[in-house]
């Protein structure tokens, strides 16, 4: 029984993010590959690979999630977001085949959270992404449950490394 003077705010449900949740704040720092649909004058310093004064239309660059979400509009006047590798077709088949072997921490420690946020960007593959997220979680559940309820008499850091940060909280 522990008393806390600070009650942590948990991450948001589904596609929502809680403004005050530390996990959501860290999550929104993940970078996404995007393609600009209009010119960004005098913002050339954001894109380190060229020395141009401003960012021309059609540049491929990486922006953090919080910025992409803010600039994204349905009519696509500002930018269009591409799916990161892990949420694309290739990796989705890997997850559907066997969720247990994948090293989720290497894929970006916020696989589930970022996946839920990607659904904001109206990609045509949205239903499949949502389905894959759920199936991966369900598939990994058994092994996570076994590991969390039994104390191994050996070093578990190899197991823990492969977990997403949602799971390491348990």
């Amino acid at each position, binding site marked *: 029984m522990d008393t806390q003077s600070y009650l942590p705010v948990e991450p*948001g449900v589904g596609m*929502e993010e809680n403004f005050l949740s530390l996990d959501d704040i860290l999550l929104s720092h993940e970078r996404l590959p995007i393609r600009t649909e209009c010119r960004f004058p005098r913002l050339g310093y954001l894109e380190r690979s060229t020395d141009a004064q401003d960012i021309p239309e059609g540049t491929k660059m990486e922006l953090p999630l919080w910025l992409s979400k803010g600039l994204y509009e349905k009519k696509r006047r500002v930018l269009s977001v591409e799916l990161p590798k892990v949420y694309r077709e290739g990796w989705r088949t890997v997850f559907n085949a066997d969720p247990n072997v994948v090293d989720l921490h290497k894929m970006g420690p916020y696989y589930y959270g970022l996946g*839920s946020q990607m*659904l904001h960007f109206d990609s045509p593959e949205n239903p499949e992404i949502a389905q894959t997220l*759920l199936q991966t979680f*369900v598939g990994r559940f058994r092994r996570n449950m076994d590991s969390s309820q039994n104390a191994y008499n050996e070093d578990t850091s190899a197991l823990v490394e492969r977990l997403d940060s*949602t799971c390491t909280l348990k």
Partner: protein
Amino acid sequence: MDPSEVEFLAEKEMVKIIPNFSLDKIYLIGGDLGPFNPGLPVDVPVWLALNLKQRQKCRIVPPAWMDVEKLEEMRELERKEDTFSPVPSPYYMELTKVLLNHASDNIPKADEIRTLVKDIWDTRIAKLRLSADSFISQLEAHAKLDNLTLMEINTIRAFLLDSLNCMYKLRSNLQPGSSKKQFTDY
């Protein structure tokens, strides 16, 4: 809930002891505890029994179910059935641990009893894990499990609730258009 809290609740169970001192009836808030006469069995709560035993003022009589043959039958029944069978006592695990730790001299065949109870516990926990696994993997909406004890529920409660929370979040992704912005005040 901590396992130590469950153990605390288990200590309310009654057990028979044979005191070696005499005392009049004592009137406690929870109930009366009958007059203590040396050599005559009396029912007391486990917490009092343990205290008296540690002060060497009594001898603890093992409960009726704590017997090798009965536990063996229970273990076979548990292994045969797919569902949970009725338990000898709602706190069988805690009582076994506590009584065998403090009063193993009063209980015949203590080691065998310990092994048998552990076997029963392992079988039940395995069934519980299987049940939780199929519940999650088939994405079912509700389940009913009979004859579970508090200690077993306690082992799985935290993990299952957290997982169901995560699953709820992931499932709400599947319903587009149902996510309206809700601003909660902190």
